[in-house]
């Protein structure tokens, strides 16, 4: 077992622990820390597998953006009177079923490439060239799609009066 395998194992252990914490912990700061451990674990796995750009983007977008916004929203919605909000759901079983379904779907789709793992190392320059070269149209379309989604959220949040 090489040092690389050990590092990958550690990253995966962090991912599993973080994911379990995110599901089973109800206390908000601990939940956010668990989610953070999971996301950093994903970044570490990308790094070990030879995609530093993906690892850094993971930290930039998910830890620095999404996770901060989640915590931000939870803090804004905090009720007064010393009561600590807890994240609880009445739909645990349904959520578990859906999670299992997504897991099965991904397993079935990704299985052909998973049985013969060829390490794919792509240089950051190649990713940049692909995004601004042959995949330019797709890249721009995704951008427009995200913008449309954001505008849709704005419209929904604003409610009926200003629509």
């Amino acid at each position, binding site marked *: 077992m090489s040092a690389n395998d050990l590092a990958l194992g550690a990253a995966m252990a962090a991912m599993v622990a973080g994911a379990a914490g995110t599901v089973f912990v109800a206390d908000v700061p601990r939940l956010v820390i668990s989610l953070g451990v999971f996301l950093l674990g994903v970044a570490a796995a990308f790094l070990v597998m030879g995609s530093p*750009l993906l690892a850094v983007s993971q930290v930039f977008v998910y830890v*620095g953006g999404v996770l*901060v*916004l989640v915590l931000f929203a939870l*803090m804004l919605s905090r009720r007064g009177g010393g009561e600590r909000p807890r994240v609880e759901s009445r739909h645990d079983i349904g959520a578990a079923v859906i999670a299992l379904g997504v897991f099965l779907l991904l397993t079935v789709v990704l299985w052909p490439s998973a049985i013969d793992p060829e390490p794919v190392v792509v240089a950051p320059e190649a990713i940049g060239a692909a995004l601004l070269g042959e995949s330019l149209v797709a890249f721009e379309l995704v951008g427009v799609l995200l913008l449309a989604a954001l505008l849709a959220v704005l419209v929904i949040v604003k409610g009926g009066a200003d629509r």
Partner: protein
Amino acid sequence: MTFVWGLLWGLAAVMLIAGGAVVGVWWERKVAGRIQMRLGPQQIGPAGVLQMIADVPKLLFKEDIVPTGADKPVFRYAPLAVFAPVAMSVAVIPFWAGWAPLDSTVGMVFYLAIPSIGVLGILLSAWGSHNTLATIGGLRAAAQMISYEVPRSLAVLSVIILAGSLQPTKVMDAWQWWWVPLTFVGFLVYLIASIAEMNRGPFDLPEAESELVAGYFSDYSGFRWAIFMMGEYGAMISAALFGAAVFLGGYRWLPGVPGLVLFLVIAMLIITVVMWVKWTFPRLRQDHLMTFCWTVLTPLAIVQVVVAGVVALWL
């Protein structure tokens, strides 16, 4: 072996930041003294230099107070999540031709991405304090830091476009003197956004003492408070070093050791300018702060990116 080296460099970075923070506090008090016609430290040692030796034991030996209502483990360890990313960001700064402590192929993005973990530390410490002032301070810090990341990243992007690489040492190899006038607006945007990122005046709304006591670190004292201070001064040192290197050319002006010395002098000048700004300008209002980011800095940074992109076509 790589691991041992990494550990040693990590220790060196923490030492550098901690030592730099102690000297920085002394220097800031001297600068503020000159600007505002106050005295600053002058009693202990020549020009008060021994004041910094007196300050450190004071902070270390103060009682470690954890409020009764706080979420104790979160409260205790959140400051580390504020400090660690700052120390990590120093790793990719190119100090010498072809050499950075961690010469990563994506170092420029690494430098921009890592401090965003610090935002999480600030939010967690604010939450852990379980205190209204801390909560408001934490919310302000998060809003401010994720907003100012945008113009900051765009400003650095202009240099990345000109150099055609994400690797800091390669950027330094490609650096030309005429990039300084070309990216000067970008440098100013970078500097202003960096001041906002490190929550220093005039952008220190999250810790505004006149309204929020000290914001997200109201409840901290002793060495945990000192970790926040180390984070703030460390962010200033790191931002100054990075700006001095990629925007102002760093060691490229002179060959060999004089180049390194000049690089450090430029960084210290930037640090002094940051302090000068803090002690000269009054604090902004929260909505002005956000408006300034989205309607002034971000468009300026985009214009800078376009200029760099057009020039890069002719390179």
